């Protein structure tokens, strides 16, 4: 295999090194990566703490949403029951679904990624620890406030998919729906921040030698998971934004009377909503692919096929969203395509199931608690998958749509495909971070309660659905549905009892530690079982196989004695090795940030911004937003500062630079991923425009004169050219580059002004969907122009402080990438909204 970066693979032969290590290395690492005290627990950024907070918070929301499920089941235990009122029931089922999906399922798997990936990849930490901490605090504070809306009767009541027109201001007055629309906002930001961290982390901070062929399946799953968030979440960001604009400013995107279309919401929502199921499932499947080889004590059968299955699921899952819309009257040919894709997506899932079964069959199963939950989950998931194939068939879906059959199906899929693997993961990885392992006896009791309770609740629910009981009804008459409902209620309390046993087990036995965990009690073969401290492993090993601990019995001892990469702190600061994305060849040493109040403040004020906006305290919301931006600017100010040394010895005499920029650097990758998110939101905006044009285009007004278009396009092109030029000339003249960025921003602002002036005379966004879309495009462009301006001012401030020097181009590169993107986006928007209607 050819070297990817010019690094000589023969250098790996220098490891493990011989001879004693100098005194004091251990102590220095302990000092640099010290544990927090007192209030520092709020500002801590280490993945051990942030990951654990994240998992704990997600589990808390799981329990809270589970309690809501018990309330619902109690209400449904008897016909015409008055335990909950209609409105309360509606709020509770909406919050149950929303909290489970947005506050438990996605954050839980993201949390496990943040907690486990550095250990699995043998990195000191993921590349943006403050971003992880920011994502956690924004999610936790905002999530709690969102949940508490229930106690004030302010919770949303339109179902977790919030279909308009039910959720429009006509049928959902008050701020309940706004709590959902804006409340989901910070969760989306949090998920995307986590996704950026995970993508860059998996691709750039692996142990040397851990090429893609040796990458643990969990890391593959997290990589695809994060990529799916980047592609899928923008769609929900856009649709929540559009509905909130419709509610707040009466812009009719979904109002059929004024040229909008409620089906647009369904397309946008399910383009996110169905892949979201796989976003949840893939990391859980990745966990199973890590746990099952340990259970069977043999390597995973069909490793490469499982990687391919994960990738295929990532792709195909974006071609199935319309199967939630089979009953909306879409053309038969369209539904047929999505029906075919919905059946096809079961193939990669089935492939993984067969590989797990083959691994278990080929090995010798050790019946521990993780084995119970893993195999139990497999059974439940397969049952859910089979009813999924049934629902992929259009005629069957017409019969079962919106009945309890569907409820039974997705609970089988989500509980089997996510909750059981997650609980298997809890028991499997607890010894890694707890002084005591969790109880085998209590774990098995919990398993049987949950496993049996699961079937008692949901197996009979298929029949309830086939008997005709619709979803989302707060009560029902006594027409034969009572007995199955009572059975389901009994089962739900069995599940709750099982979860309670786990909670008790956690209280009794889980004792967090970073250094003296119970250890590798299940004899796992992957890197997370190496002895570790708060700085992760003492030295970062060279990886030569997929199960390094099984293949090299001395690895743990050599790692602990510092015989591999980075056995000390090469620069006297927090740091990790950045490697190349394919072969994981060492490229440079990344300085890592420590604890700080700024990311914490940014998270608090971000959550505050959305929550204050929801309760219509606009000026306070603006103040909170400004404070959030201030905290973020102060936070990033500390990046890209001069290093004490230009290169460092990372072990065995191998030296790497301490700074990098361009596509080699982690910051460039992060900006590229962020712009992909922005690009996807923009793509979905274009889709919305074409979707509404296809049914109402004939009545849309003509765009402003062509001369306007030419001027605007020229300015946008000029902006892009200046931004790209700034990057090119920065090495020669940082002031010149700064001038070009300024010119690019001015071009964007002038373009925006001309564009706005061109439309302004006739633009009435509240009158029809066309004008609402144009106003949306202009607002979006204005936001990017404003951010570009802020970035340019930030560059001026850095230049003033003497930090904008030609040897360190990373900050300038990030800004110029952003501004060039903003200009390119403006150009496309111009062509779509002005040239396309004339050409079509």
């Amino acid at each position, binding site marked *: 295999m050819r070297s990817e970066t010019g690094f000589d693979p023969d250098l790996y032969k220098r490891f493990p090194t011989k001879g004693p290590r100098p005194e004091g290395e251990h102590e220095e690492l302990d000092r640099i990566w010290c544990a927090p005290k007192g209030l520092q627990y709020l500002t801590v950024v280490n993945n051990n703490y942030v990951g654990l907070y994240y998992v704990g918070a997600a589990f808390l929301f799981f329990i809270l949403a589970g309690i809501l499920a018990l309330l619902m089941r109690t209400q449904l235990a008897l016909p015409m029951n008055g335990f909950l009122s209609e409105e309360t029931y509606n709020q509770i089922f909406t919050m149950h679904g929303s909290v489970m999906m947005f506050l438990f399922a996605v954050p839980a798997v993201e949390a496990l990624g943040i907690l486990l990936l550095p250990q699995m990849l043998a990195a000191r930490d993921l590349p943006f620890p403050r971003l992880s901490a920011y994502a956690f605090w924004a999610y936790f504070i905002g999530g709690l406030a969102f949940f508490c809306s229930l106690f004030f009767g302010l919770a949303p009541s339109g179902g977790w998919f919030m279909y308009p027109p039910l959720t429009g201001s006509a049928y959902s007055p008050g701020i309940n729906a706004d709590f959902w629309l804006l409340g989901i906002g910070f969760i989306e930001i949090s998920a995307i921040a986590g996704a950026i961290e995970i993508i860059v982390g998996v691709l750039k901070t692996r142990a040397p030698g851990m090429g893609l062929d040796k990458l643990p399946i969990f890391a593959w799953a997290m990589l695809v998971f994060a990529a799916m968030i980047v592609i899928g979440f923008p769609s929900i960001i856009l649709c929540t934004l559009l509905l909130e604009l419709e509610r707040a400013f009466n812009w009719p995107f979904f109002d059929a009377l004024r040229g909008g279309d409620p089906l647009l919401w369904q397309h946008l929502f399910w383009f996110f909503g169905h892949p979201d199921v796989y976003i949840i499932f893939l990391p859980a499947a990745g966990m199973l692919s890590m746990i099952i080889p340990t259970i069977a004590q043999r390597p995973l059968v069909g490793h490469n096929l499982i990687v391919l299955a994960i990738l295929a699921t990532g792709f195909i899952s974006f071609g199935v969203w319309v199967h939630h819309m089979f009953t909306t009257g879409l*053309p038969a040919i369209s539904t047929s395509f999505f029906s075919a894709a919905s059946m096809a997506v079961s193939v990669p899932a089935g492939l993984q199931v067969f590989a797990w079964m083959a691994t278990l069959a080929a090995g010798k199963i050790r019946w521990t608690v993780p084995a119970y939950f893993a195999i139990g989950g497999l059974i439940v998931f397969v049952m859910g998958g089979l009813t999924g194939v049934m629902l992929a068939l259009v005629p069957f879906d017409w019969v079962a749509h919106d009945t309890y059959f569907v409820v039974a199906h997705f609970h089988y899929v989500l509980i089997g495909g996510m909750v059981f693997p997650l609980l298997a993961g809890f028991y499997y990885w607890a010894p890694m971070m707890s002084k005591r392992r969790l109880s085998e006896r209590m774990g098995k009791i919990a398993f049987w309660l949950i496993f049996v309770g699961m079937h008692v609740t949901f197996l009979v629910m298929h029949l309830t659905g086939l008997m005709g009981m619709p979803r989302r009804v707060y009560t029902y008459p006594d027409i034969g549905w009572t007995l199955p409902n009572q059975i389901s209620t009994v089962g739900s309390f069995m599940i709750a009892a099982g979860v309670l046993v786990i909670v008790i087990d956690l209280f009794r036995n889980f004792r967090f530690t970073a250094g003296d965990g119970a250890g590798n009690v299940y004899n796992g073969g992957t890197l997370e079982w190496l002895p570790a401290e708060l700085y992760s492993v003492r030295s970062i090993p060279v990886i030569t196989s997929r199960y390094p601990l099984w293949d090299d019995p001395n690895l743990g001892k050599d790692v602990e004695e510092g015989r591999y990469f980075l056995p000390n702190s090469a620069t006297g600061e927090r740091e990790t090795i950045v490697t190349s994305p394919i072969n994981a060849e060492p490229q440079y040493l990344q300085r890592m940030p420590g604890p700080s109040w700024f990311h914490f403040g940014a998270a608090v004020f971000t959550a505050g911004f959305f929550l204050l906006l929801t309760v219509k305290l606009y000026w306070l919301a603006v103040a909170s937003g400004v404070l959030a931006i201030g905290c973020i600017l102060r936070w990033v100010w500390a990046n890209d500062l001069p290093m004490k040394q230009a290169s460092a010895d990372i072990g065995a005499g191998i030296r790497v630079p301490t700074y990098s920029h361009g596509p080699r650097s982690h910051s460039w990758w992060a900006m590229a991923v962020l712009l992909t998110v922005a690009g996807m939101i923009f793509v979905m905006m274009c889709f919305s425009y074409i979707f509404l044009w296809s049914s109402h285009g004939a009545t849309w007004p003509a765009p402003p004169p062509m001369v306007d278009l030419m001027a605007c396009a020229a300015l946008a092109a000029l902006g892009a050219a200046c931004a790209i030029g700034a990057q090119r000339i920065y090495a020669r003249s940082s002031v010149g580059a700064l001038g070009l960025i300024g010119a690019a921003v001015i071009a964007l602002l002038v373009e925006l002004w001309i564009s706005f002036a061109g439309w302004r005379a006739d633009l009435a966004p509240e009158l029809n969907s066309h004008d609402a879309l144009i106003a949306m495009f202009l607002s979006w462009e204005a936001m990017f122009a404003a951010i570009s301006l802020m970035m340019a001012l930030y560059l001026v401030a850095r230049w003033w402080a003497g930090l904008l020097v030609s040897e360190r181009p990373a900050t300038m590169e990030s800004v110029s990438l952003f501004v060039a993107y903003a200009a390119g986006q403006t150009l496309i928007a111009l062509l779509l909204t002005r040239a396309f209607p004339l050409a079509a």
Partner: protein
Amino acid sequence: MKYWFILLAGLLLWATHFGLIYAIASISIQATGENTLLSRALIVGSGLVFAGILVVLWLRMRRGGDEVDRFSQSLSLTGALIGIVAILWQSLPALVPS
């Protein structure tokens, strides 16, 4: 990027083809109110073209080269095969009379 394009060729072409046939069907229905014979022919034809491209890629990838190691080559080849089957499967609805 070349590495990733080769690795994901089968899946990328499946996704492109899926978007294309959805667009062809939508444009046809938008323009004429029905899924015409021409649009069906285009859907099936594009399926054959895309599958054909993958067959050519598969044959070229089999010869190997410096760019891909054994792992990525096995992923690319199997992905291309899956892509061929998936593209043909996805085109089948156009053969069913409406």
